[in-house]
């Protein structure tokens, strides 16, 4: 105040000096008007303020106001009821937090207990968190509560419902409710009919994260297409010829004899691919004749890789091409075969498992810091040759001798100093990465049976690690709320993706390696650009922690599974949920798309593998948009295991499905 006076006198002096008489006069007038009001001497004002503060203290107003609003909403017209019901939840939680913030802890608890059941169905997890808020400091400390307080909730509401609500609030003079609504809800009033009850995603999304930011982010452009010049493409391409340079190389390397062999291979390839082309054409033709307006789904666009990709050796390429040619075509009528690997005698210590691309290697990460790898090809031999492997020590040389001289059926990798939470095989199966609670990621060689590198960078347990589809690069996610991109040859991360509001629980590469997706305990899935490190999509809709992610092979869709057993299919380009898949009753540990993207497999803690028809849902909405809900994804088959929760799933290149789980008795 003194400062202000000094400034004023200075200004007055200045004006006087310069001779601005009118301005001087004005300033004087102003100063008189804005003379500080003496609160204590003005009885009216004091009374007003007193009343105001009293009314602030009036806890019952929240309780009454909310309970009246609630009963009014429930008795409102059916047509508008569901829209009005959406308003209740934000009002409820903010009323609760207002009460806590004002220090009425006891009353807040009673208020919470009285009304929380209404919202238990939709928001049980949020409520669980909020229930623990018992003082102002908790509100400050808890990130969830803070973000709720700071951000306004967007609610879409139709004109009429909005009118009804305002009318009610004015008529009943419930200023507390009005205050809450004004402060925390941002109505997006739309003219016309009330929205349908089914787009309840809105209801969920409005809580917790800033929706404006999310929708802004989701407008960014992404290139979800597949990589140029991929092997699949080359196989499909007419002639299926190898590129010129490779051909020249190959010719230099191999003699004439090999050349002829090669030609024959090429011929075969050519035959196969032309056949396929013809078939495709035929399919297109029939599709056209059946539905003239429906265009055949366009092939995924091609994009350039943003990363320098590792070079593949020709032998590997050949074997992959061989696999691709022998691939079984899966569809809703041709279901895959499933080979199930059961872990026995894990004593509750198995945290994760991973299966190599060809299914020959199975890794398990244990809570005793060990990583164990089984060679399934050898396992088969053992079963044949020696059944008494336990008693008979001198049976086979295949067993790896442990330090105690005890023969083991697996290779033991020791090095971590905390529970191993994730493991992943490189595409060729020659490396394994494991992440642990000791905040490190370790790279192991399956050829040398040794630890090669220890990557340090995360500050907290690393929950997940995933090799990129081309190898060399990998992504990790951690309790420190970041995801990081690494390359095998550097011990420092290349990129750090920060933005999640809670633990990053799982990570998955996009098929074209330009993006990674991360699932978090903040119940969002985010898509990040690997090159720029920016978040390019936020997928909001899950109601609990996200545990598993899978990307469709055509790069267009993503599936995510959560703690409650819900699986959601997302369209990457729009950032919208295509459809939720309900069916599992417990945590979805693993998801996998078949190689041509027609079948989605999900493995869950409810001891089942479910197969879902993905084609019907993902393609249909494109053709006949908003024709209704019959195009929901359907469950094709539920394969029950014998009390083995399914930990991991993997489709081989030939579309054989591998699943791994642990036999547990207390399920």
């Amino acid at each position: 105040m003194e400062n202000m006076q000094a400034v004023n006198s200075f200004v007055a002096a200045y004006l006087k000096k310069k001779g601005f008489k009118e301005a001087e006069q004005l300033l004087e007038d102003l100063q008189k008007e804005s003379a500080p009001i003496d609160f204590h001497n003005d009885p009216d004002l004091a009374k007003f303020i007193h009343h105001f503060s009293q009314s602030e203290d009036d806890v019952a107003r929240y309780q009454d106001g909310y309970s009246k609003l609630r009963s009014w909403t429930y008795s409102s017209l059916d047509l508008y009821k569901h829209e009005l019901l959406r308003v209740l939840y934000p009002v409820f939680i903010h009323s609760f937090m207002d009460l806590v913030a004002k220090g009425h802890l006891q009353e807040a608890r009673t208020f919470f207990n009285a009304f929380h059941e209404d919202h238990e169905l939709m928001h049980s997890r949020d409520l669980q968190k909020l229930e623990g808020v018992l003082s102002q400091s908790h509100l400050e400390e808890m990130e969830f509560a803070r973000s709720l307080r700071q951000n306004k909730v967007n609610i879409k509401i139709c004109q009429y419902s909005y009118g009804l609500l305002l009318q009610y609030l004015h008529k009943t003079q419930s200023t507390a409710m009005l205050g809450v609504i004004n402060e925390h809800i941002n109505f997006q009033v739309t003219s016309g009919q009330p929205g349908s009850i089914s787009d309840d995603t809105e209801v969920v999304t409005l809580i917790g994260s800033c929706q404006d930011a999310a929708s802004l982010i989701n407008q960014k452009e992404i290139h979800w297409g597949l990589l140029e010049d991929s092997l699949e493409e080359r196989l499909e391409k007419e002639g299926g010829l190898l590129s010129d340079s490779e051909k020249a190389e190959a010719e230099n390397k191999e003699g004439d004899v090999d050349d002829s062999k090669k030609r024959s291979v090429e011929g075969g390839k050519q035959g196969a691919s032309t056949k396929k082309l013809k078939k495709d054409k035929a399919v297109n033709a029939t599709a056209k004749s059946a539905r003239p307006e429906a265009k055949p789904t366009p092939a995924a666009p091609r994009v350039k890789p943003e990363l320098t990709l590792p070079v593949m050796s020709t032998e590997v390429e050949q074997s992959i091409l061989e696999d691709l040619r022998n691939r079984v075509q899966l569809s809703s009528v041709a279901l895959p075969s499933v080979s199930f690997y059961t872990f026995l005698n894990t004593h509750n210590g198995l945290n994760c498992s991973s299966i190599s691309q060809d299914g020959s290697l199975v890794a398990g990460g244990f809570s005793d810091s060990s990583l164990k790898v089984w060679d399934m090809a050898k396992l088969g031999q053992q079963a044949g040759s020696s059944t008494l492997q336990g008693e008979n020590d001198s049976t086979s040389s295949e067993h790896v001798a442990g330090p105690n001289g005890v023969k083991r059926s697996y290779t033991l990798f020791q090095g971590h100093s905390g529970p191993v939470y994730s493991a992943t095989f490189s595409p060729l199966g020659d490396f394994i990465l494991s992440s642990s609670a000791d905040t490190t990621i370790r790279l192991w060689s399956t050829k040398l049976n040794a630890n090669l590198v220890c990557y340090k960078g995360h500050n907290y347990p690393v929950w997940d690690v995933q090799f990129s589809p081309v190898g060399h690069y990998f992504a990790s996610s951690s309790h420190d709320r970041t995801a990081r991109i690494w390359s095998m040859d550097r011990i420092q991360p290349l990129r750090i993706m920060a933005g999640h509001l809670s633990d990053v629980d799982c990570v998955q590469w996009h098929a074209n390696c330009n993006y990674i997706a991360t699932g978090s305990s903040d119940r969002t899935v985010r898509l990040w650009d690997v090159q720029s490190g920016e978040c390019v999509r936020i997928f909001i809709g899950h109601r609990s922690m996200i545990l598993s992610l899978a990307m469709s092979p055509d790069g267009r869709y993503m599936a995510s599974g959560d703690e409650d057993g819900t699986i959601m299919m997302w369209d990457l380009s729009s950032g919208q949920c295509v459809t939720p898949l309900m069916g599992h009753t417990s945590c979805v540990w693993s998801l996998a798309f078949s190689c041509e993207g027609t079948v989605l497999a999900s493995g869950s803690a409810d001891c089942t593998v479910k197969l879902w028809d993905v084609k019907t849902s993902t393609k249909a909405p494109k053709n006949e948009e908003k024709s209704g809900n019959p195009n929901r994804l359907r469950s094709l088959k539920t394969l029950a295991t014998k009390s083995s929760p399914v930990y991991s799933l993997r489709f081989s290149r030939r579309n054989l499905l591998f699943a791994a789980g642990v036999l547990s008795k207390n399920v």
Partner: protein
Amino acid sequence: MSNVPKEAIEVIAQSIGITNLSPDVALALAPDVEYRVREIMQEAIKCMRHSRRTVLTTDDVDSALNLRNVEPICGFASRDALRFKKAAGHKDLFYIDDKDVEFKEVLESPLPKAPLDTSVTSHWLAIEGIQPAIPENASIEAPSDGKKAEYKEDGLSVDVKLPIKHVLSRELQVARNLNNFPLMFALMRVARSLLQNEHLHIEPYLHQLMPSIITCLVAKRLGNKFTENHWELRNFAAKLVASICKRFGHVYHNLQPRVTRTLLHAFLDPTKTFPQHYGAIQGLAALGPSVLLEPEIKRHEAWCVYGALLRAAGLCMYDRLKMFPSLLAPPTRPVWKSNNKVATNKRKASTDTLMQQQPPAKKIATESAIGGSNIGVSSMSRPLSNDNMLGREVGGRVSKTSTVLAQAWKEDTDPGNLLASLFELFGESMLSFTPKPELSFFL
């Protein structure tokens, strides 16, 4: 206000040596304690999820404490459930019962068995979407279970139901009960009842029913006592088979041919015993004449069958006759022995006739095939005429052997005269192929 009462705070304070904790402090601390506990639990749940578990363990809580840089709480890692005990003299003071362990005992006790090492096994969870029924897979709802439910619907009592399930599940199990005649008869009646009930959807279980019924029809031995009338059971089963074929034959094309083939197989095999032949014939007879004209059966086979049928009808007559004395007057042991001997002689004879019989039949078959009359109806007349001839021949032979037998029997039993006269009847009946009236006559 909070779920943690202030008394708990006071107790904790006392336990760490703070005796003069003011109530205000306890009151203020209680909500914060609750918040911290919730926070720890939230982290512990994360650790649980990342350990792929759905049950929270003490390890998870320890990891969560680790994440928060709090020292883990030791002493709770044991698998046993903790027992809280009430402190004597206090209303709401509890403590954990921590037993004293004798050091010496621990040292001297034998080492516990080493836990089994982790291993991995593999099996097919599904083959092209179908789960194979192997022990590694969870048992799929067995069809027999569905049947069980249907029994319940049917209002049958439980004690009847169980043996049925046992018997019908696998044929082997039927075989195990083959000497329990009353049970088998009861089962066949149950099967008939099931078949007759229009409200039951029995079709999916036919494949399970059929082997048992066929077994009751053509089994070598049914029941372990001679007094048990297994013939009746065979007749019953034959009728049952026929009714099944009639009802479901048009739905399952291969049902009747399969039944026929099974019966023919039993019947054409000369090593089979007479009761088996009898059963096969009864079955075929019950199925009706159209069976033999089924296109699936080769023509010559049909001829063999037809001829053999006639012959075997004779045999069945013979069997009846053989039984006749035993039914009228239970014979002594020596009698039965001689009869057995006779029977074996007879069988040799029958095989002979069979051998002789086949070539002409084949010839006829080829002839008719050359004739190009593939349509069964048009070729009916010729076979019939031939058949008369054949039958006569066979009948002659049989009657010849039978007269010998009659002589043999004459020595043992009284009703020799009766038998002799019956042989004439028997011969005629061969030609007309209607043994039943005669049987009823002399039975």
